[in-house]
């Protein structure tokens, strides 16, 4: 097991380095940021000076070296467009995203578990069909459109929920609802199909024969095993949440990481984009690492086969 963890860890490090290189070149590819920063009175000399100040003069190799050196020292640089350090901007935006993301994640998770399990245990019932219908619809409707229609109905027509601001609890209803909409259908489907597979198995029959109460059979014995399938897709789920955050924060003007990412990309704010991309990459790799470890722990076949 230790060997397996070590190998996986080293692989993650290599992958992280690969992503760092990729991000560096992608960001450099995205054109000249001084186009956005120069004014009409800029002379070629002042533009060169600006380039030097931003650290984008010199050869690509030299730039890459500086990039690696700064990051390894924990220096994430300053924003090009705002006179602030990237760390400050992220420090400001991240809590806002978490304030939205954490409640959404828990509400989505609890709803997906309840609805998915109940649908699986009442297979082909009216309830099950309802859940399937919601899942199919939820995966087909564009989330941004649903959110906008919700704004139109609840904020514009009926005026019962605000579409802007983040001070009161009411401000959270629509954004959290949108985030939940982005992740619920997929998760619900996975829980349901995982549960259906498990309910067919012998040990569930045994648990029933033993005389355990139905609640105990389902929520204790079956659910644990049914969760393995959704666990393997945690990475994809995470990608979905990041996407959901970008859309939700854009629609509701929420000053979080998603909006920061979009705005800094549009403004070609290299250091900010780089940092956000690397933060996300670390989260993705960390998540894959944890999932692999958990999976190997649950299923011994994996740890022996691959190491």
């Amino acid at each position, binding site marked *: 097991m230790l060997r397996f963890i070590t190998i996986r860890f080293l692989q993650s490090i290599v992958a992280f380095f690969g992503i760092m290189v990729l991000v560096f070149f992608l960001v450099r590819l995205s054109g000249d940021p001084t186009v956005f920063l120069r004014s009409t009175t800029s002379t070629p000399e002042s533009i060169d000076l600006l380039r030097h100040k931003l650290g984008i003069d010199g050869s690509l190799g030299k730039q890459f070296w500086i990039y690696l050196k700064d990051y390894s020292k924990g220096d994430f640089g300053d924003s090009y467009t705002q006179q602030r350090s990237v760390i400050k901007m992220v420090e400001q935006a991240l809590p806002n995203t978490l304030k939205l993301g954490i409640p959404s994640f828990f509400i989505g998770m609890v709803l997906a578990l309840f609805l998915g399990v109940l649908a699986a245990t009442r297979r082909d019932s009216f309830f099950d069909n309802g859940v399937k219908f919601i899942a*199919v619809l939820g995966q*087909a*409707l564009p989330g*941004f459109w649903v959110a906008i*229609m919700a704004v139109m109905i609840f904020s514009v027509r009926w005026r019962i929920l605000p579409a802007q601001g983040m001070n009161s609890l009411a401000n959270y209803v629509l954004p959290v609802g949108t985030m939940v909409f982005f992740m619920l259908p997929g998760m619900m489907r996975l829980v349901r199909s995982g549960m259906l597979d498990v309910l067919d198995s012998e040990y569930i029959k045994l648990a029933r024969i033993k005389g355990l109460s139905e609640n105990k059979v389902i929520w204790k014995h079956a659910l644990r095993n049914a969760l393995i*399938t959704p666990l393997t897709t945690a990475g994809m789920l995470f*990608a979905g949440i990041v996407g959901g955050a970008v859309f939700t924060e854009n629609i509701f003007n929420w000053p979080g990481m998603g909006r920061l990412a979009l705005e800094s990309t549009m403004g070609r704010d290299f250091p900010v984009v780089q940092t956000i991309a690397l933060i*996300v990459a670390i989260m*993705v790799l960390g998540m894959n690492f944890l999932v692999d470890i958990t999976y190997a722990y649950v299923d011994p076949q994996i740890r022996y086969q691959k190491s």
Partner: protein
Amino acid sequence: MQTQMTAPKTVSKTKSKHEASIRRRRLTQNLTLIIPAAIFIILILTAIFAPWLEPLPYDKTDLVARWAPPGTPGHLLGTDALGRDVLSRVIYGARVSLSVSLMVIFITAFVGTALGILSGYLGGNVDSVIMRITDIALSFPGLLLAMLLAVSLGPGFFTVVLALSVLGWAGYTRLVRGASLQIRNSDYVAQARVAGASPWRIMFVHIFPNVVNPLIIIMTMAVGMMILAESGMSYLGIGIPQPTPSWGSMVSDGRNYLDTAYWISLFPGICIALVVLSGNFLGDWLRDKMDPRLRQL
């Protein structure tokens, strides 16, 4: 005597009830095929014949007739903030959605299948490197990459196609690799190897034809996903640039006029939903017909 009299009656009653339920189920099954298929055919025809179908040029602005509500003579679905006909833009938008998604699907399916067969058949280090990259591609937030590419190359048709293709191959690779792994150990592959067939020949002639079925199924399912992704990018302003209408950017156009002109956002959104829903239904149907083992997907 009484039981004898009543028994056949109940039997025939339950039997006819049973038949009715079978008939009803068959009808709904057929409807879940016919309606999506019809919507898809309409979509394809609309995309091909868009220039002849649009009642007005999609980019013709008419500042006098701004925000005309649906049902206005000459503007069946109303007009937007520049007085452009929403119906014409919706019709033309079909072209954008379909062409982007088809192109992305062919590129990603090609690359993904090639990598999947290589990975599954060759195994070893090739396999572990490809699978690691696949894992990362599957869990890397595509939107972030799309944003980077959109700005580095400038928004446009090929940027969208590239942005969606860069990570999109991974799903195909994973599926095809799984299928190839099973086929690799089959007797006919062993025989081909004994007969002296080269690895390339085995991969192309013996393995590829056997992964075509699952491939077609997920390609169909991908149509909806790609249309959603394209409209999402266009909504954020990193997709198809104005004035070419994309359903996603049309939803975004209407955002500021929700109180006065809901139709600008409403109709393109309905189109996206209908088309994606149809694509998903068709994919499900194909899967049930061709390869029920793929249920999990």
